[in-house]
């Protein structure tokens, strides 16, 4: 087994176990910490694919900023009780049904995706994920969607400030 394969299996196991622990943890703060572990495992996968820029942005934005805000909210709301209020039976049933529907859709999508069938991910080589190539691509072929999305983010930011203001 090559070293890349070992790392791949290690990261995959870490990601799946952490993701399961996010759901199973009793305390919300523990859930958030497990979610951070998931992000790290996924960033590791990006590094294996030589997509360094996406890997580090995933850590800076998700693990470094968004999860800090999650933690902020949880710590301020003092949600660190070990017991959750029990939901009634119907709520649980609808949860199972809707979750199962999502799972079926995902599985059928993966099965139908013929263009990725039989293809192997290229590890360690390829420079499409490096910042220079990515930047050139974003600012030449995809400049219009890129700029439009930046305007969208700006409006979302202003909207958040307006809603967050008192009176």
């Amino acid at each position, binding site marked *: 087994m090559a*070293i890349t394969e070992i790392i791949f299996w290690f990261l995959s196991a870490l990601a799946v176990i952490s993701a399961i622990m996010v759901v199973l943890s009793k305390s919300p*703060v523990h859930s958030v*910490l497990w979610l951070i572990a998931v992000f790290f495992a996924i960033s590791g996968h990006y590094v294996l694919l030589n997509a360094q*820029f996406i890997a580090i942005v995933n850590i*800076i934005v998700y693990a*470094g900023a968004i999860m*800090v805000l999650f*933690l902020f909210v949880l710590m301020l709301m003092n949600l*660190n009780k070990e017991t959750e209020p029990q939901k009634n039976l119907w709520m649980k049933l609808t949860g199972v049904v809707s979750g199962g529907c999502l799972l079926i859709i995902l599985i059928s999508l993966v099965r139908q995706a013929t263009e990725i069938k039989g293809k192997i991910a290229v590890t360690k080589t390829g420079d499409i994920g490096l910042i220079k190539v990515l930047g050139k691509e974003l600012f030449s072929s995809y400049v219009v969607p890129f700029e439009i999305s930046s305007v969208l983010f700006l409006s979302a930011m202003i909207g958040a400030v307006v809603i967050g203001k008192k009176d």
Partner: protein
Amino acid sequence: MTLLSIDWFLFFEKLILIAVIIFASLGIALYTTFAERKVAAILQDRPGPNRAGPFGLFQPFADGLKLIMKEEIIPNNSNKFLFVLGPALAMVAALMTCAVIPWGDKIVAFGRTVALQIADINIGILYVFGVVSLGVYGIMIGGWASNNKFSLLAALRGASQAISYELAMGISLIALLMITGTLQLGEIVKQQMQPGHFWNVVYQPLGFLLFLVCAFAECNRTPFDLPEAENELNFGYHQEYSSMKLGFYLFAEYINMFISSVIMATLFFGGYDIPFFDETKHADWGNWLALAGVVCLMIKVVIFIFFFMWVRWTIPRFRYDQLMKLGWKTMLPLALLNMLITGAVILWLKK
């Protein structure tokens, strides 16, 4: 010698390099605590620690021994795992940054050319930012797991301060990156070493100033040490900590100070470049030239660390609202302005 398709010589070479750099960082941080007490003493016109060893040089070891021998207390109502995880994370995040810093030029040893940098990755500066943003977790988790209102408040303060100043820091660096055109720290140093090219601080004075202030805030140093403001929060986020866990928190601050000094020297002051000296003409000096470069970097770092201490014992602490106002209403617009001007000048020169 390859096994599992790894070059084991490279592996051990890097392992030795990592060990040397980590121990050097720890050692320098150890003596920074001593230097801090001496500098404070000099600024306050008193002798400072002078009992342990000649000039008090063994004082840091005495301090470390004291911290290790003290009783370890974990509060009853705290979350035990997270309580221990907090200082560990603070320490790990502080040390991880040194992986991308170019400590010197290549040296030749036992027939192998060894670059004095653990990994010259494509995304150098972004890696630093990623690790810096993780440093917040050490404070937040520790503060929350202590199950103490003062600790929690201090942790929230620390986290919001770090996030606020990270923004201005990032934007002030974008202007620098526009000039260098690369994120690789090794490449940035090499550009500054070229004859006829000044250090980046000449091209980015405002950017450097903003970065410096943000570095103070990220390190939780005075005047931005609000997370540990004694008169408001008793002791800050590490109030419940004792023994070496407290030591790790305090130590992480000194490592952060050291690393941010190295990064400032690397980005703005030429890294291991020897001032007024053309390295390309003396290539035959070999390893000595590389070592001289390392010494030069260390001298720059010591000057920065002294500056950190000088400011700490001169300027009083900010009020919290003043801190936030400075971060969002002064630093951020200035950084944006700096970025705009830099972009405009680069466009103008390219015409």
